[in-house]
């Protein structure tokens, strides 16, 4: 007699194995705005970089793919008699296309040694904004330094040495120590080009990272166009100089952009807001007023036209190699070796929904990952090959986690081993996503492990008597 139980159990095992294989990784990872979670559909992206310099200036050229150009940012739409804001930071892409594209670059000259090994990871401390466990605005606003002195209400990039306990954002070292750190070069220069808030006036923002992300001294390329008492804009388009009173919401929503036309509000064609004008539903006034940057914060300018064409942004920034502001900027000297970390925001996303890079070295006359090319004159010929970087979505991984026992590589970090040889960009992107669901994944992993063992135990029990040496009747 044929023992039909054996093929039945075998079929069960094959079915279970196939089911497990085909459904692995399902059921946990999903977008969850309540927890500040949005997972980009693409976890990595390319960025091309070229660097050239002459006697006075250094030029950085960036090129990256983007399905569309997002240049509208933070807009006020007239709706039923009120000015409604569209484009505040949120988890994931802005549904109204009102969040700008950006490219940013952290620069170090050796003053922050960990940066060369771990890049931007070192700037992500505990309870950063838009993390699931972000500090509350009230807590930050009541902090003596971050709230009372700096007027901040969220935790942004900061360096580990600016905290007594890197796991606690509240433990900022005292003001004298912060100043001494800055004077010793313990800060990162931050070049921050914004397609909406700076590009239209030919500027990049110029910032630095110490105990917080600061703007350099001087005037930035934009200011806020909002009268919070009157709940209306402070400025509007001057129809005589711009030809319009307002943008139209249908153009913003459709992301219709003419780079040679008016898609932003700037001092050059702004007049004080006229509340008595017959505003129509769908009229749009940018909540940011663009202007010429000044002082140290206005050091970085767009070289030529930074435009999106044929699916790519092509942006060139230029700055004096020595700005004369050593507390705000890193100076680029001949034979100097620097470290850079790049980031790109695209697809109408802001805050932490960006793609970041490993740290790369930059050499001026010295061997490095990115070789800056010296030239005479005022215009680089850009004949060198692109440096090809892969950027990745970093998820919710912060520095306190990486140096804790929860990170298997924490001992390597303590020994100063760099991240690049150890983790690929793709690997870090997957890890970043998994960290956003770590507890749920661990639970599901335990259950999967146990279910597999129970399956095998059940199969063994089922086969027990079929594998009896005294059993008769099998067809060989």
């Amino acid at each position, binding site marked *: 007699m044929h*023992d039909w139980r054996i093929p039945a159990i075998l079929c069960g*095992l094959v079915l279970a194995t196939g089911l497990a294989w085909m459904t692995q990784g399902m059921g946990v990872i999903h977008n969850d705005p309540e927890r500040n979670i949005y997972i980009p559909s693409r976890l990595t992206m390319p960025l091309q970089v070229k660097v050239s310099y002459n006697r006075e200036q250094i030029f950085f050229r960036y090129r990256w793919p983007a399905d569309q150009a997002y240049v509208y940012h933070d807009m006020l739409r007239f709706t039923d008699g009120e000015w409604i804001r569209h484009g505040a930071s949120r988890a994931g892409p802005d549904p109204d296309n009102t969040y700008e594209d950006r490219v940013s670059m952290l620069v170090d000259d050796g003053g922050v040694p960990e940066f060369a090994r771990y890049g931007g990871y070192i700037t992500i401390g505990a309870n950063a904004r838009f993390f699931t466990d972000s500090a509350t605005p009230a807590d930050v606003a009541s902090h003596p330094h971050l709230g009372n002195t700096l007027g901040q209400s969220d935790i942004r990039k900061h360096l580990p040495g600016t905290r007594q306990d890197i796991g606690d954002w509240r433990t900022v070292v005292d003001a004298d120590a912060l100043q001494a750190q800055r004077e010793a070069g313990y800060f990162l220069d931050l070049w921050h080009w914004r397609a909406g808030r700076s590009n239209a006036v030919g500027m990049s923002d110029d910032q630095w990272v110490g105990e917080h992300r600061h703007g350099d001294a001087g005037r930035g390329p934009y200011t806020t166009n909002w009268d919070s008492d009157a709940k209306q804009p402070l400025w509007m388009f001057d129809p005589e100089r711009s030809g319009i009173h307002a943008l139209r919401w249908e153009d913003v929503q459709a992301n219709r952009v003419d780079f040679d036309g008016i898609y932003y509000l700037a001092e050059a064609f702004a007049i004080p807001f006229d509340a008595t004008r017959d505003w129509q539903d769908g009229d749009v006034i940018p909540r940011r007023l663009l202007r010429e940057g000044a002082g140290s914060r206005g050091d970085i300018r767009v070289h030529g036209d930074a435009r999106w064409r044929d699916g790519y942004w092509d942006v060139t920034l230029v700055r004096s190699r020595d700005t004369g502001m050593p507390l705000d900027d890193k100076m680029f000297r001949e034979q100097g070796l620097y470290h850079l970390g790049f980031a790109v925001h695209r697809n109408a996303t802001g805050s932490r929904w960006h793609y970041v890079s490993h740290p790369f070295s930059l050499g001026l006359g010295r061997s490095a990952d990115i070789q800056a090319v010296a030239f005479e004159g005022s215009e680089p010929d850009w004949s060198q090959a692109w440096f090809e970087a892969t950027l990745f979505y970093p998820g919710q991984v912060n520095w306190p986690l990486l140096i804790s026992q*929860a990170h298997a590589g924490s001992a390597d970090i303590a020994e100063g081993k760099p991240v690049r040889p150890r983790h690929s960009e793709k690997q870090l992107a997957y890890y970043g996503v998994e960290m956003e669901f770590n507890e749920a*994944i661990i639970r599901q992993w335990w259950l999967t492990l146990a279910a597999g063992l129970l399956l095998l135990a*059940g199969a063994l029990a089922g086969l027990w008597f079929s594998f009896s040496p005294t059993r008769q009747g099998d067809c060989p």
Partner: protein
Amino acid sequence: MTGMHHMIVHFPVGFWALAVLLVLFGTLGRGRTAEISQAALLPLLLLSLLGALAAIITGFLVWPWEANLHSPLARNHILMSLWSMAVWTMVAVLIWRAGAAAFTGARRWVLVFLALLGGGLFAMSGTLGGHLAGAPTAFSKILGALGWNVYTSFYVPDGVLLALILIGLGCAVLGAIGRHKVIKK
């Protein structure tokens, strides 16, 4: 403990690789080769399980448990290692129980399936160990082509968890029915 684990894992990996071949020779082969393979399997599997136990114990001592739980690669390595050990334990028990009869009839196909499953699992465990040690192999690319990115944790959704448990229970129930018939005989 890292070096000790790296050394010890060679025993189960080597033994299980050989066991896959012996199961195939013992079930599908003929004559003296099949007899030798059948006779060698049980002691080989007992040694492999001892080696696996030592490898798992030393493996758990490489990193803090918290680090293992936070690492997708480590989680996958642990899961595949424990499942490998469970499958090869099952093979050892079945061969111990049935003796030469394990290699006959429909039973041999059970051994073939389990050997291939166990071989696949320990290959996955091994390649994950390579990743963790900083020496990844191309095998992970094959796994990727088959649908599993080893940098993501291996887990299944709730519905499949239930299905696995029900299939296991179903197998056990079938066995109970078999027991009844054996006793009647």
